[in-house]
């Protein structure tokens, strides 16, 4: 599932790939044919041009935590498809398809983990699962994870990869924004630090709620960070988007994030922040 930049190198776009995994993949940015194993070893960054490819939640977890330390939290029980929503495809069917394609239950994976020996509660979103969108299920998993972090007094780490709210759950999705902010307040009351890592994409209702109010906010190089998508902005306002708009660098320059870090250095960066923030005293 490659990330593509447009000709002006302005923003990136994801091509939802075929389910079969070929041995070779072509970098949509530079055209290079890359051996999949080589790409994997390079954490899905193009060895030739440095373009970022998409990471699934399990791959992201593996890239950040000590080997074998991730232990998933029990999934919440929720009522699915609360509105009985159907567009061209019934929402229930979209859900089961996403489950088959990703082997995940929802668009976020949360659990206990250790990062260089430091215990944390980690939640990682997965863009492959209906655009990483937040409905009741995602809201519930995130809230439970934060409550667990507050209770166990472990830092909460969230990796955002989400296009925003899940349209098929209507206003209930919108209100998950309030739910996760409410849970975030329990972290604050417990004095437990919260570190957000913004990746491609961090947009819409997730950025405008839990993604936007961490104690420390780190952007992965190659991230897209913004409230509204570039196309929506152009269509609604007719404004020309400046070069580098909504990139990680743009966010850093506008005071929206604390650091921009290449994928290969993310764990190191996280450890540096955690070493200072984690623990008592």
């Amino acid at each position: 599932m490659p990330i593509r930049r447009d000709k002006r190198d302005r923003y990136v776009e994801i091509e939802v790939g075929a389910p079969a995994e070929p041995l070779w993949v072509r970098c949509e940015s530079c055209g290079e044919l890359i051996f999949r194993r080589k790409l994997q070893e390079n954490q899905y960054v193009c060895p030739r041009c440095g373009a970022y490819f998409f990471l699934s939640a399990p791959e992201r977890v593996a890239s950040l935590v000590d080997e074998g330390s991730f232990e998933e939290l029990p999934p919440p029980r929720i009522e699915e498809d609360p509105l009985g929503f159907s567009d061209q495809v019934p929402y229930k069917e979209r859900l089961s398809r996403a489950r088959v394609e990703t082997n995940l239950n929802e668009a976020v994976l949360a659990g206990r983990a250790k990062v260089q020996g430091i215990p944390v509660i980690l939640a990682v979103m997965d863009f492959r699962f209906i655009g990483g969108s937040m409905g009741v299920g995602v809201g519930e998993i995130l809230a439970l994870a934060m409550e667990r972090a507050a209770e166990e007094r472990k830092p909460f780490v969230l990796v955002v990869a989400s296009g925003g709210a899940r349209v098929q759950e209507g206003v209930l999705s919108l209100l998950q924004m309030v739910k996760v902010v409410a849970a975030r307040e329990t972290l604050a009351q417990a004095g437990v630090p919260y570190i957000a890592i913004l990746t491609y994409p961090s947009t819409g209702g997730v950025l405008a709620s839990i993604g936007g109010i961490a104690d420390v906010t780190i952007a992965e190089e190659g991230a897209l960070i913004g409230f509204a998508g570039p196309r929506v902005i152009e269509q609604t306002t007719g404004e020309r988007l400046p070069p580098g708009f909504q990139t990680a660098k743009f966010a850093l320059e506008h005071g929206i994030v604390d650091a921009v870090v290449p994928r290969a250095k993310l764990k190191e960066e996280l450890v540096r922040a955690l070493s200072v923030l984690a623990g008592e005293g």
Partner: protein
Amino acid sequence: MTGEERLRLLEEKAAELRRLAQEHDLDLSAELAVLEQKIAALKRSIYAELSPWARVQLARRPDRPSGLPFVQALCAGFYELRGDRIVGDDPALRGGFGKIGGARVALLFHQRGTTPEEQRQSRFGMASAHGYWKARRIMEVAARLRLPLLTLINTPGAYPGVQAEAHNIAGAIATCIWQMLRHPAPTVAVILGEGGSGGAVALAAADRVLMLENATYSVISPEGAASILWKDAKFAEKAAENLKLTAQDLWALGVVDEVIPEPPGGAHTDFLGTVEAVRQAVLHHLRELSTKPLDELLRLRYKRYRHVGSAGSGH
């Protein structure tokens, strides 16, 4: 539950209250009045049978009661605060202080404008980052003074612009939600017209959420949903049905506490009547909330939003 079943339930409740009042010589007229209002709203919504799409059109009318004229009619001595104290002001989201029924409240509201000039200036009620940073500032002032907070929502959504992104509109919205959840006094949100996605929810994390009968509240506009999910904006009407964005649907989902009735033709046919209906509803809820100690208020507020959409929530 269908509308008719809900109606029967409410009517049974009202009968029960009347019986209790008579048997025990109690004054339950306030409770009864609220219930009767609900019943009337429900009746009309059932019998009028406006489609969700028709309500979307009503909610968007430029002459819908809202904005500054509404606030000036609603409360005595409205005093406006301007600016976010960082970079600027935003005419699309305004606020300040006023008195309702003799009590001081802080107010925040969207301004859509009625003339083309006003509409251009306030971007049809789409507030930018300054607007939400200003809202945060006004919430903080209100928190210091322990004033109840009343928000009046009518926006297509937050403004999607280059400047808005540069000034962290996402962070501003998130911060407003957080601030509302922590507000150390009662909070009431009223959706007067359009309750459009993030721009609406930023002001809606309240103890009580009320909606005018033909107002809408949605995660995305029907047109937006149609173009994303149906790949064709022509399906907007269908999307409006699927999104469950009407006051009646949201009341049934437990998202909204009260549906405030509108005159048969819609709120725009009776500006003062609409203001009065909203005043009565707001006063009723503020009075009820003011009896609760602060820790109880915050606990209930947390519970309400922590469990939204989870199994077992709702009326």
